[in-house]
């Protein structure tokens, strides 16, 4: 696949979507049969957890779709407001439980915004490395799940998880836990890299390109995949912007917006990586954008693993116990694999945050789910949902 470079593609601006777009292609009930109201979820093999879509079907066609949330509403924000800043860190792991590292980072970043702590150089590198590894894990798993939804019998998912295990091994030897890393701290990281970790990481990252090639051969050119996903669930760029869609989903609609470039948080301006953009905004684009993003992540990782300096890993001003930020508020956000993950914190000077709010990309990306699904078939609705990439822990919090 040849790649045409495009310097800073201009982002289209939001159109007025003040009126909900009229669903296209729905038939009037008079012609068809009776409408079939089907609840898909909360226990449904497709829905990535306890998500529920109340679907109204005309034959196989979706004429109405209402997402129902809250089946995994675990009161994260309330708990966080009743506990210390540090104690919320392990809870952020459980937000988007595929991406604990980036969640940690987003939270740490927000607290750093609030308090002015500055992570040292080495910590910033570790953060980039772990965040990009997380992106690899997330995108790999997502693609596996998406293909599972599309009816592939486990094989892509198995290959994805085979690869995931390699990265989880890295996370485990770094942080002690496979999934719930609880690794970052305000002003740095919790533990330094163990001996040999960088070499091991380099090896995993080095093998990733080959895995992506294999995956490409396995499925990307498969006619069924192409037929199933192209032209399905199209999301126009204007609607995407107006609906606050972020992450690969937004970029698949052709909007050039990546917080790693836009906010240049951390040390991302040191890495010359590119942002792949889709032109159609359909499921196939969302799938391919993630594949291509992984290749960029691999490049970032290779550079970061090469350049990581020695040094301390945490701001010496950081305190573990008795941490009380000054009164004030801060909103910090990073580009997590699913989109913009933000934390909004209000401090009243006590050890607990007065208000603790997570801006969940998964939830907000679902805003346009109905628009994308109307007029499509049930089977499409399932893969459209799959291509949004949600994790219920984050949707419902």
């Amino acid at each position, binding site marked *: 696949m040849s790649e045409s470079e495009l310097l800073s593609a201009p982002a289209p601006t939001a159109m007025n979507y003040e009126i909900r777009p009229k669903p296209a292609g729905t038939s009037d009930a008079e012609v068809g049969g009776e409408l079939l109201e089907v609840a898909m979820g909360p226990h449904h093999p497709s829905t990535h957890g306890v998500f529920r879509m109340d679907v109204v079907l005309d034959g196989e066609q979706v004429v109405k779709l209402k997402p129902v949330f809250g089946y995994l509403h675990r009161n994260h924000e309330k708990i966080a407001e009743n*506990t*210390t800043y*540090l*104690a*919320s*860190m*392990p*809870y952020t792991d*459980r937000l988007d439980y595929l991406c604990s590292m980036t969640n940690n980072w987003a939270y740490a970043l927000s607290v750093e915004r609030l308090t002015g702590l500055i992570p040292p150089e080495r910590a910033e590198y570790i953060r980039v490395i772990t965040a990009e590894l997380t992106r690899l894990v997330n995108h790999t798993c997502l693609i596996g799940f998406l293909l599972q939804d599309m009816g592939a019998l486990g*094989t892509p998912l198995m*290959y994805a998880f*085979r690869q995931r*295990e390699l990265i989880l*091994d890295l996370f*485990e*030897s*770094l*942080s*002690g*836990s496979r999934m*719930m890393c*609880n690794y970052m*701290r305000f002003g740095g990281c*919790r*533990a*330094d890299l*163990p001996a040999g970790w960088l070499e091991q990481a380099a090896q995993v990252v080095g093998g990733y390109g080959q895995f992506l090639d*294999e995956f490409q*051969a*396995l*499925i*990307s*050119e*498969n*006619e*069924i*995949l*192409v037929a199933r996903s192209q032209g399905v669930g199209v999301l126009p760029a204007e609607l995407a912007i107006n609906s606050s869609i972020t992450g690969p989903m937004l970029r698949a609609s052709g909007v050039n917006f990546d917080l790693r470039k836009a906010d240049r948080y951390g040390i991302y301006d040191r890495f010359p990586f590119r942002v792949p953009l889709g032109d159609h905004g359909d499921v196939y684009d969302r799938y391919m954008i993630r594949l291509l993003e992984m290749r960029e992540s691999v490049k970032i990782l290779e550079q970061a693993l090469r350049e990581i300096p020695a040094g301390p*890993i*945490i701001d010496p001003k950081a*305190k*573990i*116990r008795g941490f009380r930020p000054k009164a004030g508020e801060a909103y910090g956000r990073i580009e997590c694999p699913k989109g913009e993950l933000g934390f909004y914190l209000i401090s009243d000077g006590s050890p607990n945050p007065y208000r603790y709010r997570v801006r969940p990309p998964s939830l907000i990306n679902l805003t346009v789910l109905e628009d994308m699904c109307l007029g499509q078939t049930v089977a499409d609705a399932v893969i459209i949902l799959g291509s949004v990439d949600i994790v219920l822990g984050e949707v419902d919090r």
Partner: protein
Amino acid sequence: MLGEGIIKGMAETARNFLGSYHDAARLTTVEFPEDKIPAKESARNFPFLVHDGEDAMQGLRCVACQICEKECPPKCIFIIKDTNKKPDYVGKLQFQPKVFDIDVSVCMSCQICVEVCPFDAIKMDTDFELGGSDRFGGLLLNKRRLAKPNSYYHTIHPTEAAEVDGRLAAEKAKVEAKAKADAEAKAKAAAAAAAAKAAAQTTPPVVASTPAAVVTPAK
């Protein structure tokens, strides 16, 4: 041409199928109960209490300061202080926990208790085979079940344990030296300053290398 992609994909699966017979990378299964993936050094599952010496209950490092109890995010530690003190590893008189329960059915394995404990008394275990049918009795671990010797700590986290031991030894040495110095100073209150200087020189050089792997909490 139609079908090309499918055939490519089938070639890929065929490669994996055949590879599974000779290539370890294509047969990644570890047959669990018989073979086990070696635990990573930093792996953590549930906390345990480190004790020194033979007697678990006597040698607990925990001084029931209840910091961990307060900081544990899901509040799954429960401590009742004992009323009488006993000397700790540096010989200082400290409280002991009368009750030290951890409800592992709640514990989120976050390691925050370990991080905040100023006495290196609580550490993370790697054992995960705790499943069972008894929820109430089986998963509320008491002091006895939590106590594990330092040697065990060494086997599961050798690097970290060595660092901790080093640090503790250093502290102990420092305290001892100070105590000794104090004692000597008291005994030889009238003695010359030279004698005191000589006593200080006997103190072994302390290299308190701050361990890189463990963030020492601000004490």
